[in-house]
C-alpha cells in the first residue's frame, strides 16, 4: 500500500470517500509520523493522537452509515497553538499560559472539526506569534526539516507559524492552521517549500484565537498545494457574529472555481520590491515566476507601491501598540501563571507574573507598544503609523486599478540557521519586508514554492490579491504551481 502520509488534503478526502482506505488508517499514519519526529523537530507542543483517531472513526462510521461527509472528512490536521481548543492546553507558546485549558473552542477550529477534520496536536510557534524563526517559543525552537546541501546545521522553519510549516513539510500533517499578522503564514511556507494562504482580513473569525494585533491578525493555513489550500480555507472561513470584524459575506466555492488559465489577467510587478542588493537566487526565482505568468496567458504590468519602505516601520509601531493592549489581560488573576512573591501586593503580583511569564521578545514589543501609546508620543508614533498605513493601503488600491494580482518574492532570502539573527531584532524584522505590506492592507496573499536556491533550500513566490479576491490569488498560485513543478522535499534525517 502507498504511504498515506504522502497524500494531501484532496487525495485523503477523496480516498476516504471512495473507500480506498479508511480515515483511521490515515490518522494512524500521521500519528506515527508526529511521534517519530517530535524529538528532532519539536513541531508540536502537545500531540493529541486520540483526538485524531476519534474524529477519523466518526468519519468512517458516517461513511459506513451512508451519511454525507464534510469538506475535510478524514483529514487529520495540525492546529497552531494559538487557537483555543476545548479541553486541550492552549499556550500561545508562552509560559504565562502554560497549562491553560480552554473551556471553549475557537470558531475556526470548530468549523474544521464540523467539516470532518481531526486534530493531530497543537503546533509550536513563536511566543504569542511574535517572531520570524520560531526561536521565541517557551517550549523550545522548532527545527526545519530542510538542511542546506552538505550541512547539518539546524535551520529556521520560519515564524511565527513555524511548527505548522515544519509539520507540513516533514509530512507530519497534510495541512495545518496558521495565523498571519505580518507574514506568519507566508514566510514559514516559503522557508519550507510548501503553500500557505492568508485570506482577506475578516474572512476567518478571530474568536478564540489568542490575540496579538487585532487589526492585523487573520487565520489561514498551510498545505502542500493550492487545491488543498482552497479546500481547507473554505472549511475555515465564514461569518461569525462573535467577532466584530468578521465579514458578513458568503464563502465562495474556491475549490470549484480553481483555474490556472491567466488569459485576460494582468499581473502587477511592484518596482519597489526589487531592492538594492537583492539576493540573486530570489531575483532569479521572481523572474521565473514572471515568465510562468506570461506562459499562463497573463499580461505583465509594472506597478508602483511607493510607500513600501515604510510598511515595516509602520508595522513595528502598530503591531506592538496593539499587542501591549491585548497582552494586558495576562495578569495572574484569571488564567495561567501567577507569581506571588512573599508579602507582595496586587501590583507587585502583576509585575512579577508578567516578568516570569513573558519571553524577551514579547517584553520588548510590549515596552515598544507602551512607549508609542504613552502621553506625548502617541501622535508622533502611533497616529503617524496609522496614517502611513492608510497610504500603504491606498498604494494597493491604486495598483489594483491596473492589475488583477501582484507577484513578488515572499521573503528576501531562503531560510537561515537558527541563532543567526537572534541577537539582532531588527535583522529579524527585515525578514517580513515583502509580506508585511499586504497584512497592513488586509489583503489576501499566498506563498507557493518557486524552486530551490543554490544551497538546495526552497524559495517562495508571493501572490497578493485585491480584497475579497482569494479566488484570483489561488488561481494565479495554481498557474505558478503547474509550471514550477516543485517536487523537492526534505530528505528524512529525523
Amino acid at each position, binding site marked *: 500500500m502507498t504511504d498515506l502520509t504522502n497524500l494531501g488534503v484532496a487525495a485523503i478526502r477523496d480516498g476516504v470517500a471512495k473507500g480506498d482506505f479508511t480515515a483511521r488508517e490515515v490518522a494512524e499514519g500521521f500519528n506515527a509520523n508526529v511521534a517519530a519526529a517530535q524529538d528532532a523537530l519539536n513541531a508540536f507542543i502537545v500531540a493529541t493522537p486520540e483526538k485524531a483517531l476519534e474524529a477519523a472513526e466518526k468519519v468512517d462510521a458516517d461513511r459506513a452509515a451512508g451519511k454525507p461527509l464534510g469538506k475535510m472528512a478524514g483529514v487529520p490536521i495540525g492546529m497552531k497553538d494559538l487557537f483555543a481548543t476545548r479541553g486541550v492546553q492552549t499556550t500561545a507558546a508562552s509560559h504565562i499560559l502554560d497549562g491553560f485549558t480552554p473551556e471553549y473552542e475557537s470558531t475556526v477550529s470548530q468549523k474544521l472539526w464540523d467539516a470532518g477534520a481531526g486534530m493531530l496536536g497543537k503546533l509550536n510557534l513563536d511566543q504569542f506569534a511574535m517572531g520570524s524563526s520560531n526561536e521565541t517559543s517557551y517550549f523550545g525552537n522548532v527545527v526545519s526539516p530542510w538542511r542546506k546541501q552538505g550541512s547539518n546545521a539546524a535551520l529556521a522553519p520560519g515564524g511565527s507559524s513555524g511548527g505548522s510549516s515544519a509539520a507540513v513539510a516533514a509530512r507530519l500533517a497534510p495541512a495545518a492552521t496558521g495565523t498571519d499578522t505580518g507574514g506568519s503564514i507566508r514566510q514559514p511556507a516559503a522557508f519550507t517549500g510548501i503553500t500557505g494562504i492568508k485570506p482577506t482580513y475578516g474572512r476567518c473569525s478571530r474568536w478564540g484565537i489568542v490575540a496579538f494585533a487585532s487589526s492585523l491578525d487573520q487565520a489561514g493555513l498551510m498545505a502542500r498545494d493550492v487545491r488543498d489550500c482552497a479546500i481547507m480555507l473554505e472549511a475555515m472561513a465564514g461569518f461569525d457574529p462573535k467577532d466584530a470584524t468578521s465579514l458578513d459575506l458568503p464563502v465562495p466555492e474556491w475549490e470549484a472555481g480553481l483555474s490556472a488559465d491567466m488569459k485576460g489577467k494582468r499581473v502587477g510587478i511592484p518596482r519597489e520590491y526589487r531592492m538594492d542588493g537583492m539576493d540573486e537566487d530570489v531575483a532569479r526565482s521572481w523572474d521565473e515566476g514572471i515568465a510562468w505568468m506570461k506562459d499562463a496567458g497573463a499580461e505583465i504590468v509594472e506597478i508602483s507601491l511607493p510607500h513600501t519602505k515604510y510598511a515595516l516601520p509602520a508595522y513595528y*509601531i502598530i503591531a506592538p501598540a496593539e499587542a501591549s493592549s491585548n497582552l494586558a489581560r495576562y495578569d495572574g488573576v484569571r488564567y495561567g501563571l501567577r507569581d506571588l512573591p512573599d508579602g507582595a501586593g496586587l501590583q507587585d503580583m502583576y509585575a512579577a507574573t508578567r516578568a516570569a511569564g513573558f519571553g524577551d521578545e514579547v517584553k520588548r514589543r510590549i515596552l515598544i507598544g507602551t512607549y508609542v501609546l*504613552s502621553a506625548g*508620543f502617541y501622535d508622533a508614533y502611533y497616529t503617524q503609523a496609522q496614517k502611513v498605513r492608510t497610504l500603504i493601503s491606498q498604494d494597493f488600491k491604486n495598483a489594483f486599478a491596473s492589475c488583477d494580482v501582484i507577484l513578488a518574492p515572499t521573503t528576501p532570502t531562503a531560510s537561515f540557521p537558527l541563532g543567526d539573527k537572534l541577537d539582532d531584532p531588527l535583522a529579524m524584522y527585515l525578514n517580513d519586508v515583502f509580506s508585511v505590506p499586504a497584512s497592513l492592507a488586509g489583503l489576501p496573499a499566498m506563498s507557493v514554492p518557486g524552486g530551490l536556491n543554490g544551497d538546495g533550500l526552497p524559495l517562495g513566490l508571493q501572490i497578493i490579491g485585491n480584497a475579497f479576491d482569494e479566488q484570483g490569488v489561488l488561481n494565479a498560485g495554481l498557474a505558478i504551481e503547474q509550471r514550477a513543478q516543485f517536487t523537492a522535499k526534505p530528505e528524512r534525517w529525523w
Partner: protein
Amino acid sequence: MSVDKATVAKIASLARIRMDDAELDRMVPELNNILGWVEQLGEVDVAGVEPMTAVIPNTLRLREDVVDADPLTGGGKRDAVLANAPAAEHGFFGVPKVIE
C-alpha cells in the same frame, strides 16, 4: 527620540513588567535601535491623510437584545470562567490583599 534607562524603567512599570537593572541595561540599546529605525516614518508627508483604524470597511452590528442568545458567550458560566484561575475562592477570583 531615544530613551534612557529611567524612561525604560518607567515604561516597564506602566506595562507592569518587573525588570532588574541588568535587564533594563540590556533593553535600552535594543529599544533605541528599534525606535531609531521607526523614526523614518517622520519623512512621510501625511498632510490630509486620515489614520487607518479599520482595514476593511465594515459596520459594527448590534446583536438582538436577548438574554443568552448565544449560549457560548451568554451568562451562567461562573465555574467555566473560573476553571483556569490560579486562585479561585468561593466563586470569585482570589487576589492578594489590596491595602493602599
